[in-house]
């Protein structure tokens, strides 16, 4: 019995080793091929710095919008039982399975100059296409489901008695949400935030289709990498290494800030 169990353990371990190697090898290769000199050169490039800075600003704005709107929305979904709830959950997850290029087309059809709301937006003086604001819209669209899903699941997992205890102690639903539910769910919420932020930083297709690729205005780091890729592979490689480092540092910071429970445990 023990022999068979340990044989299986060896197989499982081997599977993990293969998965780990395959998933990390390209990341390691980026750094190995780049070299420290090129990495510093890449950071010295005006265009590269601009693209990185744009990526940070737009993804931060997108995350702020996602968290502010998504947290109460997820709370509503987690605490209410209503007709069509399953349909709402599926609709929210739709952007997860949608190819980013299609997301871009969809955004154009909805908010583009000739889109359904295009006229109304133009009358209000809001331009999205080929503008930085358009990048933020694209990032919110593709990244929001990651946060919403995680936040909804975390709120659903909260002990209902803890929420009810707050109510019997004189707190209305709003105070219960702010003072009890959000702090109790902070681990899961942070994990969702990190996922969404990671997705936003790496966003490429929808941004390209909807906002275009103009240096300094809509050319985020992934778009800059693609632009360099056609001309100078070494520069593309160096910028990739920088983006990986920045993303990893951001995710790590967010998770450390939320404490240990954001690493997969429950809050």
């Amino acid at each position: 019995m023990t022999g068979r169990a340990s044989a299986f353990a060896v197989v499982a371990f081997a599977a993990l080793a293969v998965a780990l190697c395959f998933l990390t090898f390209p990341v390691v290769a980026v750094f190995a091929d780049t070299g420290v000199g090129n990495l510093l050169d890449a950071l010295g490039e005006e265009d590269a710095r601009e693209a990185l800075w744009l990526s940070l600003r737009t993804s931060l704005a997108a995350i702020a919008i996602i968290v502010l709107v998504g947290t109460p929305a997820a709370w509503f979904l987690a605490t209410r039982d209503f007709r069509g709830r399953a349909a709402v959950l599926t609709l929210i997850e739709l952007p997860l399975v949608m190819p980013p290029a299609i997301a871009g087309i969809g955004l154009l059809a909805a908010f583009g100059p000739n889109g359904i709301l295009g006229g109304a937006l133009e009358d209000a003086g809001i331009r999205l296409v080929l503008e930085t604001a358009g990048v933020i819209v694209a990032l919110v669209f593709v990244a929001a489901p990651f946060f919403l899903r995680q936040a909804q699941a975390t709120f659903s997992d909260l002990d209902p008695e803890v929420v009810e205890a707050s109510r019997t102690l004189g707190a209305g639903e709003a105070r219960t949400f702010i003072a009890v539910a959000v702090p109790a769910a902070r681990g899961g919420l942070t994990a969702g935030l990190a996922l969404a932020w990671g997705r936003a930083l790496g966003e490429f297709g929808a941004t390209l289709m909807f906002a275009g690729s103009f240096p300094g205005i809509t050319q985020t780091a992934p778009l800059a990498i693609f632009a360099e890729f056609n001309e100078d592979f070494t520069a593309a490689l160096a910028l990739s290494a920088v983006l990986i480092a920045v993303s990893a540092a951001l995710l790590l910071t967010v998770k450390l800030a939320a404490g240990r429970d954001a690493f997969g445990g429950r809050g």
Partner: protein
Amino acid sequence: MSPGLEAQATATLRQLRIDLRLAVPGHGRIALVGPSGAGKSTMLRIVAGLHRPERGVVRLGDQVWLDTGAGVFRPPEERRCGFLFQSYALFGHLDVRRNVAYGLRGVPRAERRVRTDRMLERFGVLHLAEADPGELSGGERQRVALARALAPKPAVLLLDEPLAALDPTSRASAIRELGSMLGDVKVPTIIVTHDFHEAALLADRLVVVERGRIVQQGPPSRIASAPATPFVGEFAGASVLFGRAEGIEDGTTTVRLDGGGTVRSAEPGAGRVAVSVFPWEVAVELDLGAHRDSALNRIPAEITTMTEVGSRVRVGLALPQPMAAEVTSASAQALGLQAGMAVNAVWKATATRVTPV
């Protein structure tokens, strides 16, 4: 005096139809007892506003909290119900002091601190004020949760299975502690439990609930001695008598019962005690003079009630404290037992449990 609580509700919960009516006087402490899934906790949640019944009225004095007919529903935060949850439901992200202060919003800061610490002291957990709930034992958690529920001076206190989360070894002492802590609470109190013994020690009136309906209510001893249904008879288990332990001699404790009579037990005890005896341990004999057997307890009693429980008869006795004996229908007939007869209640010292109260 605090206003009394009245609650009446009809609700459907999966297969269970709940139809209950309760009245708790301003100083009263009632226990809702019955098996799990009888609808007891749901009734508690209806009173607190955590569950909306299809039809119902909940009223505290002249304040209406719920009246489905008139379209009145006050949310839980406006009802001033102290609620002790089964899991205690402490806020894990707040330390003990902040947990207890949570319900004191609107109280000026300095006064809040004083009131919080006074509650912590009263429940013996002041030294844990800075601890996180995760570091506490089950008993400590219970005391913090009770302090938190009582800090805002609630108009009603509701306890849902207050001892269920404790391990069996700490339960016996926890019942006693909880009993004395509840002694200072002067508002209508409802305790939900599936343990008859626990209910008898904590409440002055029991309401037995079975499948969403009240099957019997009254003082604990009355229910044990005259169960309304076979179910209540099985459920009620032991009769509970109160008295004072007078000392230990030859390994037996003598307990002088309130209202008269003495009982001997093989268990040690001192001070105020509850004596419990299962009805099937108690024999009934006609008082015919001299006896010689191993039963140490032979107490004159009067038969008050005779209740059929299956093939047996539950005999209600006045010692004068009420207690129950159970005999077969055949022997009840052979002895010609009937209400009003003078008999002896007989049982062994080894069949007598002694619990400090």
